[in-house]
């Protein structure tokens, strides 16, 4: 079943150097329970797509259809994670985790109880009263992930959430994410520049063309295992990786597409 349809979305920005068409008629579907990665050349407007789905930007034209109904955006219904952990520095770990629940008016006592449960599930028990700056990058991003999951969003929007982390921490957090996605049967849209991550985690990868961006290709990823390490060990992994590098025209030393 189609969860979200993006239909012919166009967006341009007007700046000092004139008008820039960022999205030139973008159309794709996201199915229920899907894990879709959006990749594309840098500056192609990946984050713009993301902000339009989240309801933070209005498209110039085109529409979003969510579960069969035309919507403006999915404000309040999405989980949102970025490369920056976006933890509020003035709130403790616990208070950061409850932010989404608090905004929805969930009573403090219930919110805190739930937050404590989540924190201990993800190995952060004992850090409830710490401030974010006392935590390592990996821990902070884990807190951000918990904050995203605790509001039980219909759709997870992830904008390069792990790209600032070292490789081991990233593998670990990818695992945590995949487990949570399986357990809670979430639909995920991951915006990334990391082809390797896109192949390892996704059921489908949407490749965007350069500006103004449109859908260049869609790949169904079929790997035996969708765990960070399992997927990367699959013999078919390299094939997808090469194909996607080719789509993005990444040049090798010899000057040919990878």
């Amino acid at each position, binding site marked *: 079943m189609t969860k979200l349809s993006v239909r012919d979305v166009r967006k341009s920005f007007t700046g000092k150097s004139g008008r820039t068409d960022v999205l030139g008629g973008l159309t794709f579907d996201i199915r229920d329970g899907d894990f879709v990665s959006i990749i594309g050349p840098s500056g192609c407007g990946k984050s713009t797509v993301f902000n339009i789905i989240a309801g933070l930007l209005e498209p110039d034209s085109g529409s979003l259809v969510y579960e069969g109904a035309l919507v403006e955006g999915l404000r309040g219904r999405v989980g949102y994670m970025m490369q920056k952990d976006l933890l509020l520095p003035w*709130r403790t770990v616990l208070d950061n985790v409850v932010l989404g629940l608090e*905004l929805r008016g969930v009573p403090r006592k219930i919110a805190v109880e739930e937050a404590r449960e989540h924190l201990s599930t993800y190995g952060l028990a004992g850090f409830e009263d710490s401030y974010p700056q006392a935590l390592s990058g990996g821990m902070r991003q884990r807190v951000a992930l918990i904050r995203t999951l605790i509001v039980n969003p219909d759709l997870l929007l992830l904008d390069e959430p792990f790209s600032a982390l070292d490789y081991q921490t990233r593998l670990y957090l990818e695992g945590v994410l995949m487990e949570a996605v399986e357990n809670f049967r979430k639909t995920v849209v991951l915006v990334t520049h990391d082809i390797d991550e896109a192949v390892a985690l996704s059921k489908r990868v949407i490749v965007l063309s350069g500006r103004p961006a449109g859908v260049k290709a869609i790949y169904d990823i079929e790997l035996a295992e969708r765990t960070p390490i399992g997927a990367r060990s699959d013999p078919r992994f390299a094939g997808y990786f090469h194909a996607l590098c080719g789509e993005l025209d990444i040049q090798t030393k010899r000057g040919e597409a990878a």
Partner: protein
Amino acid sequence: MTRVESQLAARPAKVQPRKRHRRARLDTPLGRVALQVGSIALLLGVWEAAARFGWISAFLFGSPAGIYESARRSLLDGSLLVDVWTTSFEALLGFVIGTAAGSLAGLALWYSRFVARVVEPLIVAFNSVPKIAFAPVIILWFGTGLLAKVALAVSLTSIVALIAAYQAAKDADPDLQRLALALGATKSQVFRKIIVPASLPAIVACFRINLGFGLVGAVVGEFISSQRGLGHLVFTASSLYDISTVWVGLFVLMAIGFALYFVIDRIERALLPWKLDRGGHDLNV
């Protein structure tokens, strides 16, 4: 290893630890206080000697002994305490009212970009007038009592707080606001849960500046017209060439500012607990 290399390798090992060691012995709470008290005592000693031996004019510059005598006198007859109370009360009241009103107005400007754009040049214009120039008018309007001094202090502190708070609200991380919005926050929730706490450090930093401005407002108000207060004390004493009393007024003003600074420090710790331990003290720059 050549000789040059071995010398280079040996030198830092020999020189650096000793240097660090000497500093470490003095760099303790007790050591620092001893240094501070010692340097003040030295200064007072040199001053007293200079006045006694006629190196400087005791009439124009006063002397520590004279200052002590004049302080003792005004303490005993109770006039100093009245002056201290008067000026502190005026300054604090002006500080609290001006800072609160200014901060709230500055934060409120975040709400409407339209209003902010209309008001911004007016704020800049008001801010570029030296507020002290208003003093005569303020005294005409508010009389020669408490009200005029408070009003002057408010005119100084409110504009500083307003600009600081507005700037801080404008600078609040847009990504944090995006996050809150994506989670379904209303504008008023973004304001209360993101903008206000994000602006708080700048607002508290402005407390320190405004404390000084509160005192400036009170003292200048007293200079122009008053019956009591430290500004009155300094002004009348200097017109009588009573330098010792002038110094008493100045030192007491300094002590008040100093004491209030520590009060602000406490407030800062209470309001910004997350700012307390930022680390970086071990950086050997």
